[in-house]
């Protein structure tokens, strides 16, 4: 984990309100898919770091790709970053996706809802690199008109199934509807997205007796596990906290769906 000024190498406007950038930072050396970083705004009135998930990793060039949605002051300021700008970064943070948990799984479902999709791109690239073939990616968007960001990049690595809230592309509905209409029967799920979707994934996994790993979000202050601001209720006493709370920034953001109460 390092704290340094990263340099913006390029900026992307991927869709309505969705931006991305490659940041030059030595944090890339130790980063894994599913981890995140904290970025500071330049404003003395907005002092908490903004957690942004890592979309892609380029270890050789020591670069991290971040993709975010403009949701407030910080992400709006970031959307105006330009090449060469420097930005305070803390990371990589969190546990990331546990690939070992695959243990012989053959049909892998990767499900991303809205701005939950970006952290899954690095995961799918890693899974693809291990030679796994049966990877199905389910991506949920508001509408085709708002832009199906990252979909084409996922297609280079896996079979992609689109769902949209308004039916303007792919299945009319959620990623779970897309899974349903695909007729596939995954034996493991990796998911990131809004809470209603994650609840659906958790329920699906429990009904089908398969493991699911979900990436959670919560308001954070420190990002490193010190402030205990971002916890999730757990089924068992957490080894660190000794209560039924786990730190999303440290024990997470990725949890086995069965272990958390959401």
């Amino acid at each position, binding site marked *: 984990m*390092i704290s340094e000024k990263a340099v913006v190498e390029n900026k992307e406007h991927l869709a309505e309100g969705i931006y991305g950038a490659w940041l030059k930072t030595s944090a890339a050396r130790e980063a894994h898919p599913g981890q995140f970083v904290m970025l500071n705004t330049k404003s*003395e009135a907005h*002092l*908490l770091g903004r957690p942004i998930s890592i979309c892609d990793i380029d270890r050789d060039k020591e670069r991290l790709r971040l993709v975010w949605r403009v949701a407030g002051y910080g992400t709006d300021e970031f959307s105006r970053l330009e090449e060469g700008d420097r930005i305070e970064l803390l990371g990589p943070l969190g546990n990331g996706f546990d690939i070992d948990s695959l243990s012989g799984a053959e049909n892998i479902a990767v499900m991303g809802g809205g701005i939950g999709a970006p952290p899954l791109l690095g995961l799918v690239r890693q899974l693809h690199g291990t030679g796994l073939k049966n990877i199905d990616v389910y991506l949920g968007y508001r509408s085709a008109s708002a832009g199906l960001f990252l979909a084409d990049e996922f297609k280079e690595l896996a079979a992609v199934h689109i769902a949209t809230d308004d039916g303007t592309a792919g299945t009319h509905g959620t990623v779970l509807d897309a899974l349903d209409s695909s007729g596939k029967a995954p034996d493991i799920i990796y998911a990131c997205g809004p809470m209603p979707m994650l609840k659906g994934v958790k329920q699906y996994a429990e009904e089908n007796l398969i493991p699911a790993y979900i990436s959670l979000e919560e308001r954070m202050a420190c990002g*490193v596990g010190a402030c205990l601001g971002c916890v999730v209720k757990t089924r068992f006493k957490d080894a660190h906290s000794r*209560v039924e709370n786990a730190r999303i920034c440290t024990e997470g953001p990725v949890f086995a769906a069965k272990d958390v109460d959401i």
Partner: protein
Amino acid sequence: MNTAVEICGINFKNPVMNASGTFGSGMEYCGLVDLNRLGAVVTKGVAKVPWEGNPTPRVAETASGMLNAIGLQNPGIDVFIERDLEFLKNYDTNVIVNVCGHSVGEYVEVVQRLAECDNVSMLEINVSCPNVHEGGIAFGTDPGALEEITKAVKKAAKQPVIMKLSPNVTSIAEMAKAAEAAGADALSLINTITGMKIDIYKRRFLLANRTGGLSGPAIRPVAVRMVYEAAHAVKIPVIGMGGIASAEDAIEFMMAGASAVAVGMMNFHNPGIMTEIIDGIERFMQEQGIDDLAEITGIL
């Protein structure tokens, strides 16, 4: 030039420490911050048994500050002693243990357990957490209750006792005097100021606990005023905190009467800030020809 300060007979290599609750027990930050450079590590509040804390959301950003309502989640004194205090034995810095409870008895039990621990330099009694409903703040806003708990804790304590005062009172001087009269060895202030934030679109409180404690540079002028009033009301040393974000801020608190200072929410913004402040204090002393911080402590 000497940045060391002495509080209750204990030597601090410099007057800079973290505010309780913003730094865990140092474990999470030790990869980013050299704990050996700090005047002290102040641990997160610990109770006799594990506490679950409040539901989430527990934090919210505000103008030049933040609200928190963690609710003193902690693993309990047993785990704290065998894990956190053991970890801190690896570092050459003072350890100040922040103690919380729901009743005088619970505070005393924790203080008794800590009496056995030889790497605890001081105790900080948290009678001012605005986010714990049973006890907590009650002791911090009533002079009589503050005297009662101070006396009970002092009787059980082996280490010097710092009473951490709440700013949510009409007269901080009255509270400071009550703690001193009851035998407190030192005071620390300010804890957070109770605040609230509302999401007007969802029509609900931003914090699940409804209210939370406001900290950060936003409240610094209130903290400096209260440190000034408290330090001028008592003879025991005062540890000042509240929105410190630079060496200049730290010096401001010392000139107002603080013998040492604690950095709180700004650790979240910049994990390197405490060491930067220590360096900045040295620079300030050089520029201003100050040999010993005692020359400027309480100068106003």
